[in-house]
Protein backbone atom coordinates (compact mmCIF):
# COMPACT_ATOMS: atom_id res chain seq x y z
CA UNK A 1 0.00 0.00 0.00
CA UNK A 2 1.16 3.54 -0.76
CA UNK A 3 0.66 6.70 1.29
CA UNK A 4 -1.73 9.49 0.30
CA UNK A 5 0.31 12.45 -0.93
CA UNK A 6 -0.42 16.13 -0.50
CA UNK A 7 -1.03 16.31 -4.27
CA UNK A 8 -3.75 13.67 -3.92
CA UNK A 9 -5.36 15.52 -1.02
CA UNK A 10 -5.27 18.74 -3.08
CA UNK A 11 -6.85 16.95 -6.02
CA UNK A 12 -9.55 15.39 -3.81
CA UNK A 13 -10.42 18.83 -2.50
CA UNK A 14 -10.53 20.20 -6.04
CA UNK A 15 -12.95 17.42 -7.04
CA UNK A 16 -15.07 18.09 -3.93
CA UNK A 17 -15.14 21.79 -4.85
CA UNK A 18 -16.58 20.91 -8.25
CA UNK A 19 -19.22 18.76 -6.55
CA UNK A 20 -20.28 21.55 -4.21
CA UNK A 21 -20.30 24.21 -6.95
CA UNK A 22 -22.27 21.98 -9.34
CA UNK A 23 -24.88 21.20 -6.67
CA UNK A 24 -25.27 24.76 -5.34
CA UNK A 25 -28.95 25.11 -6.20
CA UNK A 26 -29.84 21.50 -5.47
CA UNK A 27 -28.34 21.65 -1.98
CA UNK A 28 -30.05 24.96 -1.29
CA UNK A 29 -33.37 23.53 -2.47
CA UNK A 30 -32.93 20.62 -0.08
CA UNK A 31 -32.18 23.07 2.76
CA UNK A 32 -35.28 24.98 1.75
CA UNK A 33 -37.51 22.00 2.56
CA UNK A 34 -37.08 22.42 6.33
CA UNK A 35 -34.26 24.93 6.76
CA UNK A 36 -33.61 28.38 5.39
CA UNK A 37 -32.41 27.37 1.95
CA UNK A 38 -28.90 28.77 2.16
CA UNK A 39 -26.83 25.61 2.53
CA UNK A 40 -25.91 25.18 -1.15
CA UNK A 41 -25.13 28.84 -1.71
CA UNK A 42 -23.16 29.19 1.52
CA UNK A 43 -21.03 26.18 0.73
CA UNK A 44 -20.59 26.95 -2.98
CA UNK A 45 -19.57 30.55 -2.28
CA UNK A 46 -16.74 29.23 -0.12
CA UNK A 47 -15.64 26.40 -2.35
CA UNK A 48 -15.46 28.67 -5.39
CA UNK A 49 -12.78 30.62 -3.52
CA UNK A 50 -11.13 27.43 -2.31
CA UNK A 51 -10.94 26.02 -5.85
CA UNK A 52 -9.54 29.30 -7.14
CA UNK A 53 -6.90 29.63 -4.40
CA UNK A 54 -5.96 25.94 -4.25
CA UNK A 55 -3.16 26.09 -6.84
CA UNK A 56 -1.41 28.94 -5.04
CA UNK A 57 -1.94 28.37 -1.32
CA UNK A 58 0.75 27.16 1.09
CA UNK A 59 1.42 23.49 0.33
CA UNK A 60 4.48 23.05 2.54
CA UNK A 61 2.42 20.38 4.30
CA UNK A 62 -1.05 18.81 4.32
CA UNK A 63 -1.74 20.44 7.69
CA UNK A 64 -0.78 23.91 6.46
CA UNK A 65 -2.97 23.51 3.37
CA UNK A 66 -5.99 22.33 5.39
CA UNK A 67 -5.61 25.14 7.95
CA UNK A 68 -5.59 27.65 5.07
CA UNK A 69 -8.74 26.03 3.66
CA UNK A 70 -10.28 26.26 7.12
CA UNK A 71 -9.55 29.99 7.08
CA UNK A 72 -11.25 30.35 3.69
CA UNK A 73 -14.34 28.57 5.06
CA UNK A 74 -14.40 30.87 8.08
CA UNK A 75 -14.27 33.88 5.79
CA UNK A 76 -16.44 32.88 2.86
CA UNK A 77 -18.93 30.27 4.10
CA UNK A 78 -22.01 31.73 5.79
CA UNK A 79 -24.58 30.14 8.08
CA UNK A 80 -23.66 27.23 10.33
CA UNK A 81 -21.65 25.63 7.56
CA UNK A 82 -18.86 28.16 7.94
CA UNK A 83 -17.81 27.11 11.42
CA UNK A 84 -18.78 23.45 10.79
CA UNK A 85 -16.69 22.87 7.70
CA UNK A 86 -14.06 25.33 8.87
CA UNK A 87 -13.72 23.37 12.10
CA UNK A 88 -13.50 20.07 10.20
CA UNK A 89 -10.61 21.29 8.04
CA UNK A 90 -8.97 22.97 11.03
CA UNK A 91 -8.94 19.84 13.19
CA UNK A 92 -7.85 17.59 10.33
CA UNK A 93 -5.10 20.08 9.60
CA UNK A 94 -3.89 20.14 13.18
CA UNK A 95 -3.27 16.38 13.26
CA UNK A 96 -1.51 16.50 9.89
CA UNK A 97 0.81 19.38 10.71
CA UNK A 98 4.12 19.09 8.83
CA UNK A 99 3.11 15.95 6.94
CA UNK A 100 3.50 15.89 3.15
CA UNK A 101 1.85 12.48 2.96
CA UNK A 102 -0.33 10.38 5.26
CA UNK A 103 -1.16 6.72 5.66
CA UNK A 104 -4.75 5.53 5.48
CA UNK A 105 -4.66 5.15 9.26
CA UNK A 106 -3.44 8.72 9.65
CA UNK A 107 -6.21 9.84 7.29
CA UNK A 108 -8.69 8.02 9.54
CA UNK A 109 -7.30 9.95 12.49
CA UNK A 110 -7.70 13.21 10.60
CA UNK A 111 -11.33 12.42 9.83
CA UNK A 112 -11.89 11.40 13.44
CA UNK A 113 -10.37 14.68 14.67
CA UNK A 114 -12.62 16.61 12.30
CA UNK A 115 -15.70 14.75 13.54
CA UNK A 116 -14.85 15.32 17.19
CA UNK A 117 -14.18 19.00 16.46
CA UNK A 118 -17.54 19.45 14.74
CA UNK A 119 -19.32 17.70 17.62
CA UNK A 120 -17.62 19.98 20.12
CA UNK A 121 -18.33 23.08 18.04
CA UNK A 122 -22.03 22.60 17.42
CA UNK A 123 -23.02 20.27 20.25
CA UNK A 124 -24.79 17.85 17.91
CA UNK A 125 -24.90 14.13 18.67
CA UNK A 126 -25.60 11.06 16.59
CA UNK A 127 -29.31 11.13 15.67
CA UNK A 128 -29.69 14.93 15.74
CA UNK A 129 -30.12 14.76 11.95
CA UNK A 130 -26.97 16.55 10.92
CA UNK A 131 -24.04 15.63 8.70
CA UNK A 132 -22.56 14.03 11.80
CA UNK A 133 -25.02 11.18 11.28
CA UNK A 134 -22.87 10.44 8.20
CA UNK A 135 -19.49 11.52 9.53
CA UNK A 136 -19.56 9.63 12.86
CA UNK A 137 -20.13 6.17 11.29
CA UNK A 138 -17.73 7.10 8.49
CA UNK A 139 -14.98 7.81 11.03
CA UNK A 140 -15.66 4.45 12.71
CA UNK A 141 -15.67 2.58 9.41
CA UNK A 142 -12.36 4.18 8.44
CA UNK A 143 -10.78 3.29 11.78
CA UNK A 144 -11.91 -0.28 11.22
CA UNK A 145 -10.74 -0.61 7.61
CA UNK A 146 -7.64 1.59 7.57
CA UNK A 147 -5.22 -1.05 8.89
CA UNK A 148 -5.92 -3.18 5.80
CA UNK A 149 -4.67 -0.26 3.74
CA UNK A 150 -7.12 -0.65 0.87
CA UNK A 151 -8.02 2.97 -0.01
CA UNK A 152 -10.49 2.06 -2.78
CA UNK A 153 -12.40 -0.44 -0.62
CA UNK A 154 -12.48 2.07 2.23
CA UNK A 155 -13.81 4.85 -0.01
CA UNK A 156 -16.51 2.53 -1.32
CA UNK A 157 -17.45 1.46 2.23
CA UNK A 158 -17.73 5.02 3.61
CA UNK A 159 -19.71 6.13 0.57
CA UNK A 160 -22.18 3.36 1.33
CA UNK A 161 -22.32 4.53 4.96
CA UNK A 162 -23.16 8.09 3.87
CA UNK A 163 -25.67 6.84 1.27
CA UNK A 164 -27.50 4.80 3.92
CA UNK A 165 -27.42 7.72 6.40
CA UNK A 166 -29.62 9.75 4.04
CA UNK A 167 -32.53 7.31 4.29
CA UNK A 168 -31.88 6.31 7.90
CA UNK A 169 -32.24 9.92 9.06
CA UNK A 170 -34.94 10.98 6.62
CA UNK A 171 -37.79 10.47 9.08
CA UNK A 172 -35.99 11.95 12.07
CA UNK A 173 -36.75 15.41 13.48
CA UNK A 174 -33.85 17.87 13.24
CA UNK A 175 -32.46 18.96 16.61
CA UNK A 176 -29.79 21.35 15.32
CA UNK A 177 -29.54 24.13 12.76
CA UNK A 178 -32.31 26.19 11.29
CA UNK A 179 -34.24 23.03 10.43
CA UNK A 180 -34.71 22.38 14.16
CA UNK A 181 -36.90 25.49 14.37
CA UNK A 182 -39.70 23.88 12.37
CA UNK A 183 -39.71 20.87 14.71
CA UNK A 184 -41.89 18.02 13.43
CA UNK A 185 -42.04 19.55 9.98
CA UNK A 186 -38.39 18.62 9.45
CA UNK A 187 -39.33 14.93 9.41
CA UNK A 188 -39.62 13.24 5.99
CA UNK A 189 -37.05 15.58 4.48
CA UNK A 190 -33.45 14.56 3.82
CA UNK A 191 -30.73 16.40 5.72
CA UNK A 192 -28.87 18.53 3.16
CA UNK A 193 -25.58 18.21 5.04
CA UNK A 194 -25.68 14.43 4.86
CA UNK A 195 -26.61 14.57 1.19
CA UNK A 196 -23.69 16.95 0.66
CA UNK A 197 -21.20 14.59 2.29
CA UNK A 198 -22.56 11.58 0.39
CA UNK A 199 -22.51 13.41 -2.94
CA UNK A 200 -18.86 14.37 -2.47
CA UNK A 201 -17.93 10.77 -1.63
CA UNK A 202 -19.89 9.48 -4.63
CA UNK A 203 -18.04 11.90 -6.92
CA UNK A 204 -14.75 10.74 -5.45
CA UNK A 205 -15.74 7.17 -6.28
CA UNK A 206 -16.44 8.18 -9.86
CA UNK A 207 -13.19 10.15 -10.04
CA UNK A 208 -11.04 7.31 -8.68
CA UNK A 209 -12.87 4.61 -10.67
CA UNK A 210 -14.41 2.99 -7.62
CA UNK A 211 -17.80 1.82 -8.78
CA UNK A 212 -20.69 2.16 -6.37
CA UNK A 213 -24.43 2.29 -7.06
CA UNK A 214 -26.19 4.58 -4.61
CA UNK A 215 -29.63 3.78 -3.18
CA UNK A 216 -30.80 7.17 -1.82
CA UNK A 217 -32.98 9.12 -4.26
CA UNK A 218 -30.92 12.28 -3.65
CA UNK A 219 -27.82 10.55 -5.10
CA UNK A 220 -29.67 9.52 -8.26
CA UNK A 221 -31.46 12.77 -8.98
Amino acid at each position, binding site marked *: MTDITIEQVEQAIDVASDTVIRNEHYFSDLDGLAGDG*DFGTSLATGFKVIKADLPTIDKSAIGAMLLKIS*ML*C*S*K*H*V*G*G*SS*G*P*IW*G*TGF*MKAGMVSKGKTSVTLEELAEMVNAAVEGIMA*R*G*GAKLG*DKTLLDALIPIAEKMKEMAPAGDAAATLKAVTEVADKAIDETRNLVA*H*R*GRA*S*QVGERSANTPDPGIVGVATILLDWCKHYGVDYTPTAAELNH
Partner: protein
Amino acid sequence: MKKFVNDPANFVPEFMKGVILANPDLLEAVPEFQMIKRKDRPVADKVSVVQGSGSGHEPAHVMAVGPGMLDGACQGPVFAAPPVDACYETIKALASDAGVLVLVNNYQGDRMAWDMACEMAEAEGIKVKQFIINDDVAVKDSLYTVGRRGVAGNFFVIKACGAAAAEGKSLDEVIAVAEKVNNNVRTMGVALTSCIPPAKGNAIFEIGDDEMEVGIGIHGEPGRSREKIRSADSITETLFDAVAVDLPFNSGDRVALMINGLGGTPPAELYVLYAKAHELAEARGLTVARNYVGEYCTSLEMAGASLTMLKLDAELETYLAAPAQIATRVF
Protein backbone atom coordinates in the same frame (compact mmCIF):
# COMPACT_ATOMS: atom_id res chain seq x y z
CA MET B 1 -41.57 46.69 -0.05
CA LYS B 2 -42.33 49.73 2.14
CA LYS B 3 -38.68 50.28 3.04
CA PHE B 4 -35.91 52.79 2.64
CA VAL B 5 -33.31 50.64 0.92
CA ASN B 6 -30.94 50.86 -2.03
CA ASP B 7 -29.36 47.63 -3.27
CA PRO B 8 -30.51 45.18 -0.56
CA ALA B 9 -27.04 43.62 -0.66
CA ASN B 10 -25.69 46.92 0.72
CA PHE B 11 -28.34 47.43 3.40
CA VAL B 12 -26.07 46.47 6.31
CA PRO B 13 -22.92 48.34 5.22
CA GLU B 14 -25.05 51.39 4.41
CA PHE B 15 -26.75 51.69 7.78
CA MET B 16 -23.39 51.07 9.45
CA LYS B 17 -21.95 53.92 7.41
CA GLY B 18 -24.76 56.11 8.74
CA VAL B 19 -23.86 55.13 12.30
CA ILE B 20 -20.23 56.12 11.75
CA LEU B 21 -21.10 59.42 10.04
CA ALA B 22 -23.43 60.21 12.95
CA ASN B 23 -20.78 59.41 15.58
CA PRO B 24 -17.46 60.53 14.11
CA ASP B 25 -15.75 61.28 17.43
CA LEU B 26 -16.85 58.14 19.22
CA LEU B 27 -16.72 55.30 16.71
CA GLU B 28 -14.69 53.90 13.86
CA ALA B 29 -15.55 51.17 11.38
CA VAL B 30 -13.66 48.26 9.86
CA PRO B 31 -15.91 47.82 6.81
CA GLU B 32 -14.20 44.62 5.61
CA PHE B 33 -15.55 42.82 8.67
CA GLN B 34 -18.73 44.87 9.18
CA MET B 35 -17.20 45.88 12.50
CA ILE B 36 -17.66 49.03 14.53
CA LYS B 37 -15.47 49.81 17.52
CA ARG B 38 -14.80 52.58 20.01
CA LYS B 39 -11.98 54.80 18.76
CA ASP B 40 -10.45 54.82 22.24
CA ARG B 41 -10.46 51.05 22.78
CA PRO B 42 -8.78 48.67 23.47
CA VAL B 43 -6.81 49.80 26.51
CA ALA B 44 -4.49 47.32 28.21
CA ASP B 45 -5.96 47.41 31.70
CA LYS B 46 -9.64 47.26 30.81
CA VAL B 47 -11.69 44.26 29.72
CA SER B 48 -13.14 44.73 26.23
CA VAL B 49 -16.78 43.71 25.87
CA VAL B 50 -17.75 42.69 22.32
CA GLN B 51 -20.69 41.17 20.49
CA GLY B 52 -21.77 40.32 16.99
CA SER B 53 -24.85 38.80 15.45
CA GLY B 54 -27.23 39.08 12.55
CA SER B 55 -28.49 42.49 11.45
CA GLY B 56 -32.08 43.69 11.66
CA HIS B 57 -32.14 44.14 15.44
CA GLU B 58 -30.86 47.70 15.61
CA PRO B 59 -29.86 49.37 17.91
CA ALA B 60 -28.47 45.94 18.80
CA HIS B 61 -25.64 45.25 18.10
CA VAL B 62 -23.29 47.78 16.46
CA MET B 63 -25.43 50.70 17.61
CA ALA B 64 -24.80 49.57 21.19
CA VAL B 65 -21.08 50.32 20.92
CA GLY B 66 -19.97 53.19 23.10
CA PRO B 67 -18.58 54.19 26.51
CA GLY B 68 -20.04 52.02 29.25
CA MET B 69 -21.54 49.63 26.69
CA LEU B 70 -19.89 47.50 23.99
CA ASP B 71 -16.32 48.26 22.96
CA GLY B 72 -16.84 46.70 19.55
CA ALA B 73 -19.28 44.64 17.52
CA CYS B 74 -19.60 43.08 14.10
CA GLN B 75 -22.73 42.51 12.04
CA GLY B 76 -23.76 39.56 9.94
CA PRO B 77 -26.26 39.82 7.11
CA VAL B 78 -29.88 40.45 8.14
CA PHE B 79 -30.90 37.64 10.54
CA ALA B 80 -27.71 35.59 9.87
CA ALA B 81 -24.58 35.10 11.98
CA PRO B 82 -21.44 37.04 11.05
CA PRO B 83 -18.69 35.00 9.39
CA VAL B 84 -16.15 33.43 11.73
CA ASP B 85 -13.33 35.67 10.55
CA ALA B 86 -15.31 38.84 11.31
CA CYS B 87 -15.77 37.57 14.86
CA TYR B 88 -12.12 36.66 15.04
CA GLU B 89 -11.02 40.07 13.76
CA THR B 90 -13.34 41.80 16.24
CA ILE B 91 -11.74 39.94 19.13
CA LYS B 92 -8.30 40.79 17.75
CA ALA B 93 -9.18 44.47 17.27
CA LEU B 94 -10.31 44.78 20.90
CA ALA B 95 -7.73 42.44 22.43
CA SER B 96 -6.36 43.79 25.73
CA ASP B 97 -4.19 42.47 28.56
CA ALA B 98 -7.27 42.44 30.78
CA GLY B 99 -8.97 40.23 28.22
CA VAL B 100 -11.97 40.20 25.88
CA LEU B 101 -15.47 39.14 26.89
CA VAL B 102 -17.70 38.02 24.03
CA LEU B 103 -21.41 38.28 24.81
CA VAL B 104 -23.10 35.71 22.58
CA ASN B 105 -26.85 35.54 22.13
CA ASN B 106 -27.96 31.94 22.14
CA TYR B 107 -28.35 31.09 18.47
CA GLN B 108 -26.44 28.21 16.96
CA GLY B 109 -24.99 30.28 14.13
CA ASP B 110 -23.67 32.96 16.47
CA ARG B 111 -22.44 30.43 19.00
CA MET B 112 -20.47 28.37 16.51
CA ALA B 113 -18.98 31.41 14.81
CA TRP B 114 -17.82 32.96 18.08
CA ASP B 115 -16.70 29.63 19.50
CA MET B 116 -14.42 29.03 16.52
CA ALA B 117 -13.27 32.67 16.53
CA CYS B 118 -12.36 32.41 20.23
CA GLU B 119 -10.44 29.22 19.59
CA MET B 120 -8.50 30.91 16.78
CA ALA B 121 -7.80 33.96 18.96
CA GLU B 122 -6.69 31.87 21.92
CA ALA B 123 -4.37 29.94 19.61
CA GLU B 124 -2.68 33.32 19.07
CA GLY B 125 -2.42 33.94 22.80
CA ILE B 126 -5.30 36.41 23.04
CA LYS B 127 -7.12 36.31 26.40
CA VAL B 128 -10.80 35.84 25.54
CA LYS B 129 -13.90 34.27 27.08
CA GLN B 130 -17.47 33.82 25.90
CA PHE B 131 -20.73 34.23 27.75
CA ILE B 132 -24.06 32.94 26.40
CA ILE B 133 -27.21 35.05 26.87
CA ASN B 134 -30.59 33.27 26.86
CA ASP B 135 -33.39 35.33 28.40
CA ASP B 136 -36.34 34.34 26.17
CA VAL B 137 -38.89 32.45 28.26
CA ALA B 138 -41.00 31.65 25.21
CA VAL B 139 -38.74 28.73 24.33
CA LYS B 140 -39.20 25.72 26.57
CA ASP B 141 -35.63 24.76 27.39
CA SER B 142 -34.79 21.32 26.09
CA LEU B 143 -32.02 18.83 25.57
CA TYR B 144 -33.01 18.59 21.96
CA THR B 145 -32.64 22.20 20.83
CA VAL B 146 -30.07 24.94 21.26
CA GLY B 147 -32.33 26.16 24.08
CA ARG B 148 -33.63 29.57 25.02
CA ARG B 149 -32.83 32.49 22.75
CA GLY B 150 -31.07 35.68 23.65
CA VAL B 151 -33.37 38.66 23.07
CA ALA B 152 -33.92 42.10 24.63
CA GLY B 153 -32.39 41.04 27.96
CA ASN B 154 -29.13 41.32 26.07
CA PHE B 155 -29.29 45.09 26.67
CA PHE B 156 -29.01 44.64 30.43
CA VAL B 157 -26.10 42.19 30.15
CA ILE B 158 -24.26 44.68 27.93
CA LYS B 159 -25.08 47.64 30.19
CA ALA B 160 -23.93 45.94 33.38
CA CYS B 161 -20.81 44.34 31.86
CA GLY B 162 -19.93 47.62 30.16
CA ALA B 163 -20.14 49.44 33.49
CA ALA B 164 -18.13 46.75 35.30
CA ALA B 165 -15.45 46.78 32.61
CA ALA B 166 -15.29 50.58 32.71
CA GLU B 167 -14.68 50.31 36.45
CA GLY B 168 -11.65 48.17 35.72
CA LYS B 169 -13.07 44.86 36.90
CA SER B 170 -11.22 41.70 35.85
CA LEU B 171 -12.43 39.39 33.08
CA ASP B 172 -13.73 36.84 35.60
CA GLU B 173 -15.44 39.57 37.59
CA VAL B 174 -17.15 40.93 34.46
CA ILE B 175 -18.24 37.40 33.54
CA ALA B 176 -19.69 37.04 37.03
CA VAL B 177 -21.72 40.19 36.36
CA ALA B 178 -22.94 38.78 33.03
CA GLU B 179 -23.96 35.60 34.83
CA LYS B 180 -25.83 37.49 37.50
CA VAL B 181 -27.77 39.52 34.94
CA ASN B 182 -28.52 36.56 32.70
CA ASN B 183 -29.68 34.50 35.68
CA ASN B 184 -32.06 37.25 36.74
CA VAL B 185 -33.45 38.57 33.45
CA ARG B 186 -36.44 37.19 31.54
CA THR B 187 -38.18 38.31 28.35
CA MET B 188 -41.18 37.44 26.25
CA GLY B 189 -42.34 39.12 23.05
CA VAL B 190 -45.40 39.29 20.84
CA ALA B 191 -45.65 40.10 17.14
CA LEU B 192 -48.64 41.76 15.49
CA THR B 193 -47.08 41.70 12.02
CA SER B 194 -44.32 39.91 10.17
CA CYS B 195 -41.30 41.69 8.65
CA ILE B 196 -39.48 41.72 5.33
CA PRO B 197 -35.70 41.17 5.13
CA PRO B 198 -34.62 43.52 2.30
CA ALA B 199 -32.72 40.82 0.39
CA LYS B 200 -35.63 38.38 0.71
CA GLY B 201 -38.25 40.86 -0.44
CA ASN B 202 -41.18 39.10 1.20
CA ALA B 203 -42.51 38.46 4.71
CA ILE B 204 -40.68 35.83 6.81
CA PHE B 205 -44.02 34.44 8.00
CA GLU B 206 -47.72 34.85 7.31
CA ILE B 207 -50.07 36.22 9.94
CA GLY B 208 -53.78 37.11 9.71
CA ASP B 209 -55.16 40.63 10.08
CA ASP B 210 -56.63 39.72 13.46
CA GLU B 211 -53.80 37.47 14.65
CA MET B 212 -50.72 37.84 16.85
CA GLU B 213 -47.80 35.49 17.51
CA VAL B 214 -47.18 35.18 21.25
CA GLY B 215 -43.60 34.31 22.19
CA ILE B 216 -42.23 35.41 18.81
CA GLY B 217 -38.50 35.12 18.17
CA ILE B 218 -36.66 38.17 16.88
CA HIS B 219 -36.04 36.40 13.57
CA GLY B 220 -39.70 35.50 13.29
CA GLU B 221 -39.21 32.08 14.86
CA PRO B 222 -42.59 30.66 15.85
CA GLY B 223 -43.48 31.35 19.49
CA ARG B 224 -45.73 29.70 22.04
CA SER B 225 -49.05 30.27 20.31
CA ARG B 226 -50.84 31.96 17.43
CA GLU B 227 -53.84 33.83 18.85
CA LYS B 228 -56.44 36.46 18.02
CA ILE B 229 -55.28 39.99 18.88
CA ARG B 230 -56.54 41.04 22.30
CA SER B 231 -56.58 44.35 24.18
CA ALA B 232 -53.23 45.92 25.03
CA ASP B 233 -53.82 45.22 28.72
CA SER B 234 -54.66 41.59 28.13
CA ILE B 235 -51.59 41.10 25.93
CA THR B 236 -49.42 42.77 28.57
CA GLU B 237 -50.80 40.40 31.20
CA THR B 238 -49.83 37.43 29.05
CA LEU B 239 -46.28 38.69 28.60
CA PHE B 240 -45.91 39.77 32.21
CA ASP B 241 -47.21 36.52 33.67
CA ALA B 242 -44.96 34.40 31.46
CA VAL B 243 -41.96 36.47 32.56
CA ALA B 244 -42.92 36.84 36.22
CA VAL B 245 -43.52 33.17 37.01
CA ASP B 246 -40.45 32.01 35.16
CA LEU B 247 -37.72 33.39 37.41
CA PRO B 248 -39.90 33.80 39.52
CA PHE B 249 -40.09 37.47 40.49
CA ASN B 250 -41.38 37.67 44.05
CA SER B 251 -42.99 40.28 46.24
CA GLY B 252 -40.34 42.63 47.60
CA ASP B 253 -38.03 42.31 44.59
CA ARG B 254 -36.64 45.47 43.04
CA VAL B 255 -36.71 45.20 39.25
CA ALA B 256 -35.83 46.94 36.00
CA LEU B 257 -38.81 46.83 33.63
CA MET B 258 -38.45 47.19 29.88
CA ILE B 259 -41.02 47.50 27.11
CA ASN B 260 -39.08 47.01 23.90
CA GLY B 261 -40.53 47.92 20.52
CA LEU B 262 -39.89 45.43 17.72
CA GLY B 263 -39.53 48.18 15.13
CA GLY B 264 -42.91 49.05 13.67
CA THR B 265 -44.75 49.94 16.86
CA PRO B 266 -44.73 53.67 17.71
CA PRO B 267 -43.82 55.23 21.09
CA ALA B 268 -47.39 55.93 22.23
CA GLU B 269 -48.35 52.24 22.03
CA LEU B 270 -45.22 51.22 23.94
CA TYR B 271 -46.24 53.54 26.78
CA VAL B 272 -49.74 52.05 26.80
CA LEU B 273 -48.07 48.67 27.38
CA TYR B 274 -45.72 50.16 29.96
CA ALA B 275 -48.58 51.61 31.99
CA LYS B 276 -50.14 48.18 32.38
CA ALA B 277 -46.84 46.37 32.93
CA HIS B 278 -45.91 48.81 35.69
CA GLU B 279 -49.24 48.24 37.43
CA LEU B 280 -48.89 44.46 37.15
CA ALA B 281 -45.40 44.67 38.64
CA GLU B 282 -46.66 46.70 41.58
CA ALA B 283 -49.65 44.41 42.04
CA ARG B 284 -47.15 41.57 42.37
CA GLY B 285 -45.34 43.48 45.09
CA LEU B 286 -42.37 44.38 42.89
CA THR B 287 -40.68 47.78 43.01
CA VAL B 288 -39.84 49.16 39.56
CA ALA B 289 -36.49 50.78 40.33
CA ARG B 290 -35.64 51.55 36.70
CA ASN B 291 -37.66 51.45 33.51
CA TYR B 292 -36.92 51.36 29.80
CA VAL B 293 -39.46 52.12 27.06
CA GLY B 294 -38.30 52.21 23.46
CA GLU B 295 -36.47 50.24 20.80
CA TYR B 296 -33.60 48.15 22.17
CA CYS B 297 -33.77 44.97 20.12
CA THR B 298 -35.91 45.15 17.01
CA SER B 299 -36.94 42.76 14.29
CA LEU B 300 -36.76 45.06 11.26
CA GLU B 301 -40.16 46.79 10.87
CA MET B 302 -42.14 44.16 12.77
CA ALA B 303 -45.05 45.61 14.74
CA GLY B 304 -44.86 44.15 18.20
CA ALA B 305 -43.14 44.43 21.54
CA SER B 306 -41.37 42.45 24.22
CA LEU B 307 -41.48 42.74 27.99
CA THR B 308 -38.25 42.23 29.94
CA MET B 309 -37.78 42.17 33.70
CA LEU B 310 -34.48 42.07 35.53
CA LYS B 311 -34.29 41.33 39.25
CA LEU B 312 -31.93 43.86 40.80
CA ASP B 313 -29.52 43.98 43.68
CA ALA B 314 -27.38 46.89 44.86
CA GLU B 315 -24.53 45.96 42.50
CA LEU B 316 -26.73 45.75 39.42
CA GLU B 317 -28.55 48.98 40.25
CA THR B 318 -25.20 50.76 40.38
CA TYR B 319 -24.18 49.31 37.02
CA LEU B 320 -27.49 50.23 35.36
CA ALA B 321 -27.22 53.78 36.72
CA ALA B 322 -23.63 54.22 35.51
CA PRO B 323 -23.15 56.69 32.65
CA ALA B 324 -23.14 55.25 29.14
CA GLN B 325 -23.41 56.46 25.57
CA ILE B 326 -24.36 54.82 22.27
CA ALA B 327 -25.21 55.74 18.70
CA THR B 328 -28.92 55.80 19.47
CA ARG B 329 -29.48 58.95 21.48
CA VAL B 330 -32.04 61.74 21.75
CA PHE B 331 -29.92 64.89 22.08
